[in-house]
């Protein structure tokens, strides 16, 4: 896991990239210099060769016409008039003794018909040992003729070229390694930052985030995305943690009461009426627990979208009317009037039973918390691209800063636990709304709470 600050190690992608880059640079440099060498360097180029070969044939013709002495004269004249001073000639007898030319003797390395040969020879005119490229020919009499070019300058050029190549490779390698090392440090440091953050999170510090450098570069963008994901994860984990904590609390209390009721019912001297009362109490507790679990499961199912395959057009107006008829009596007994402002024929695509369950939750919420208020209002209406169902009460309402939280499982507005309910109702409604491509919005009813379910029309996003 730990990596020293030392040199580029080969176990990371950057190093491999640098090595690949290095190889590429080396090969391309070698190719460029190789091309230069091939095009300008070498011993003699093709053009020179053809010139020399033509000269050789010309001299052979001259030998045939004028004999060895005539050719010797021609050679001497050519040497004298050679401007570049690079022409090399040698006319020798069959034993290699020179007749004319600027070489001391017939070189051992060259025999006629060998083609082009390059070797170091002593030039009599300059008095120095030089690199010569030459070609030889046996003349009709058995004499031998050699014509060549002094390539000392070219050899020097070659050497320079070689040195240049080596230096270039060396410099390139060094530079590549240095820049690569720096690049790798930079990349690795950013990656290590992400890695360290991830490790810290793994140990439980869920609030850690990758630091942004404000450069807006790709690392910043990556870090930004990662942070957004971490935010969401933290939210989910916190939510889950709260659910587990609250669940164990909400289970412990009724289970404790259940245990107590059962223990009391066990006592032998209890009158049967009293025992029945205890059993009834126990049954109430069990029902409450079952309701709690059923609600939790409903939320999970809604969140998983189970039942979405049975979506069909649901008459929201009719449903609201039905539910008003169901709850009217209860509300009246609680001293609350239910007023319905229901536009006809408002439909949404959805699951009638699940939607009805959600609306029921809102009505029961309004009845429970809207006490003291004179009425609750249920309204159903068509908006431009959506359908809306809202329920408003005139109870104490929910403070603005808590509205986002009450849709979480088990969240309770301070003091509302006494009014019954486990704090799952609004979470269920919100989950059902999301399942139907809608949302639950809580707002101030001035006074009281206004819960609005908005269902966007399907296909409204692309149907312009």
């Amino acid at each position, binding site marked *: 896991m730990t990596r020293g600050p030392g040199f580029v190690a080969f176990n990371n992608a950057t190093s491999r990239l640098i090595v690949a880059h290095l190889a590429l640079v080396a090969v391309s440099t070698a190719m460029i210099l190789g091309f230069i060498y091939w095009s300008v360097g070498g011993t003699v180029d093709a053009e020179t060769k053809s010139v020399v070969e033509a000269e050789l044939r010309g001299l052979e013709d001259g030998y045939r016409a004028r004999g060895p002495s005539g050719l010797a004269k021609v050679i001497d004249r050519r040497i004298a008039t050679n401007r570049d001073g690079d022409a090399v000639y040698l006319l020798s007898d069959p034993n290699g003794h020179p007749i004319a030319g600027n070489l001391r003797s017939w070189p051992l390395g060259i025999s006629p018909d060998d083609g082009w040969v390059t070797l170091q020879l002593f030039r009599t005119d300059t008095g120095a040992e030089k690199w010569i490229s030459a070609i030889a020919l046996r003349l009709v009499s058995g004499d031998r003729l050699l014509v060549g070019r002094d390539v000392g300058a070219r050899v020097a050029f070659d050497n320079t070229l070689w040195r240049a190549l080596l230096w270039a490779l060396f410099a390139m390698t060094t530079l590549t390694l240095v820049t690569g090392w720096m690049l790798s440090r930079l990349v690795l440091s950013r990656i290590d930052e992400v890695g360290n953050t991830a490790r810290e999170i793994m140990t439980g510090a869920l609030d850690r985030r990758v630091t942004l450098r404000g450069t807006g570069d790709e690392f910043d963008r990556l870090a930004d995305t990662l942070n957004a994901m971490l935010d969401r994860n933290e939210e989910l984990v916190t939510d889950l943690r709260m659910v587990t904590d609250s669940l164990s609390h909400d289970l412990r209390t009724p289970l404790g009461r259940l245990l107590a009721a059962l223990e009391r019912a066990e006592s032998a001297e209890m009158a049967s009426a009293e025992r029945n009362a205890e059993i009834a109490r126990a049954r109430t507790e069990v029902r409450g627990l079952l309701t709690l679990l059923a609600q939790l499961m409903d939320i999970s*199912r809604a969140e998983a979208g189970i039942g979405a395959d049975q979506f069909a057009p649901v008459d929201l107006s009719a449903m609201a009317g039905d539910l008003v008829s169901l709850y009217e009596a209860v509300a009246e007994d609680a001293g609350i009037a239910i007023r319905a402002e229901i536009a006809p024929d408002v439909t949404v695509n959805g699951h009638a*039973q699940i939607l009805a369950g959600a609306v*029921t939750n809102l009505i029961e919420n309004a009845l429970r918390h809207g006490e003291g208020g004179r009425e609750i209002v249920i309204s159903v209406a068509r908006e431009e691209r959506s359908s809306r169902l809202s329920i408003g009460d005139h109870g104490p309402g929910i403070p603005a800063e808590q509205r986002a939280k009450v849709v979480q499982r088990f969240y309770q507005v301070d003091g509302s636990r006494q009014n019954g309910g486990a704090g799952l109702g609004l979470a269920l409604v919100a989950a059902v709304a999301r399942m139907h491509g809608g949302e639950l919005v809580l707002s101030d009813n001035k006074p009281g709470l206004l819960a609005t379910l908005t269902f966007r029309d399907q296909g409204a996003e692309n149907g312009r």
Partner: protein
Amino acid sequence: MSRRILIVEDDTETQSYLVKALGEAGYVVERTASGREGLFLATGSGFDAIILDRMLPDLDGLSLLKSLRAAKIATPVIMLTAMSAIDERVRGLRSGADDYLIKPFSFAELEARLDAVLRRPSDAHEETQISCGDLEIDLISRSARRGGRTIELQQREFQMLEYLVRRKGRVVTRTMLLEGVWDYHFDPKTNVIDVHISRIRRKVDGEGETPLIKTIRGAGYMITNGA
């Protein structure tokens, strides 16, 4: 002659509980934990009703039910399923179940529903009037009278009373009323149904009259002719 019930349920505890409770209630009970055996038994000797678990190890309840209905066997079936599966319930009813119960359920609920499916009118001849004692319900004019006195009922109250009278002498649970009258399949959390019943009761059972609507503790309600 006592009714014969087939229980197809793989959970041994639920199975033995049902066998015991139904036996005590006077039913003759046969049981199996296997879906295939259940299908074999159901197609064979005449049962009056089948209690069928949705989840079975070999052949699941829904497939069993479909095979049964495909074989033109119309024995009433009550499906049992795990907690809180509204869409499952719809699927089950569509596959030909006569009723659907969500586990865990009270035995009173099962008994009431079993009673209901067993006595479900086989041929739905059009009735225009039903009665219970001196309570008369006119289904054409949708009005109710008791001993010459007209009872003013709201639409839902009328439907609830009709539901009760059609099942007179039998227990009707709150959930059954909610399903039968409103067509919603959730357990009412508040006492919505009780409040409606108490209103109907105030209107039906006037002062000095014999109370017709009885509360059955731990189960629901029942209307009787007062005898």
